[in-house]
């Protein structure tokens, strides 16, 4: 079945520590891949996206993600987390054919401790 999986429901990191949020997808062909961030009471904000080409993608707010075809993964990373990064993070895919909408994972809640 087609799916987007974010295996970590909740992650807690210390401020200044590194971060990696996992995302795996299961689709027939490599889809377009996205990471969104959602702060309380806010809409989803796009952090970065992958269509093709360089498998290491740079985004806003110091985030990056690496596409690994062999693992069907698109993990989000940040070298040094700031307290303001505390939020919900969603991985999403867009299909190459068919539906125009995005398919989202269930999200990972990030807590940052001082």
């Amino acid at each position, binding site marked *: 079945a087609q799916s987007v999986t974010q295996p970590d429901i909740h992650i807690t990191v210390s401020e200044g520590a590194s971060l990696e949020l996992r995302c795996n997808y299961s689709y027939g062909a490599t*889809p377009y891949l996205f990471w969104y961030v959602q702060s309380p*009471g806010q*809409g*989803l904000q*796009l952090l970065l996206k992958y269509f093709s080409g360089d498998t290491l993608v740079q985004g806003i707010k110091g985030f990056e993600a690496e596409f690994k075809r062999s693992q069907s993964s698109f993990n989000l990373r940040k070298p040094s987390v700031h307290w303001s990064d505390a939020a919900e993070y969603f991985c*999403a895919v*867009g299909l190459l054919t068919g539906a125009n*909408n995005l398919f989202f994972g269930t999200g990972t809640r990030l807590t940052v401790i001082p």
Partner: protein
Amino acid sequence: GAGVSQSPRYKVAKRGQDVALRCDPISGHVSLFWYQQALGQGPEFLTYFQNEAQLDKSGLPSDRFFAERPEGSVSTLKIQRTQQEDSAVYLCASSLNMRVRAGDNEQFFGPGTRLTVL
């Protein structure tokens, strides 16, 4: 406006009431999407418009859900005879172009309407 706006931001309805949720997309954006986000879940697709045409409504969970975009800008999502399982955040997103796949075309999201059905 600068971004996608939605109103009301919060709505409490008694079971059986009808509700209408409004979305104002970014001016000039052709495509408009509605998503439903249940508590602790990711957004799930409801329906998609290209200008005033509703091209995909495969995600609408029942015939109690109805969406329209009569002039190709503002959209309204209507839920008739609300049920407790309709409680969720309803997100609207718009994107500029229409002849591209979802991945080619960034979707800009509004803050959502939180619907609580008692």
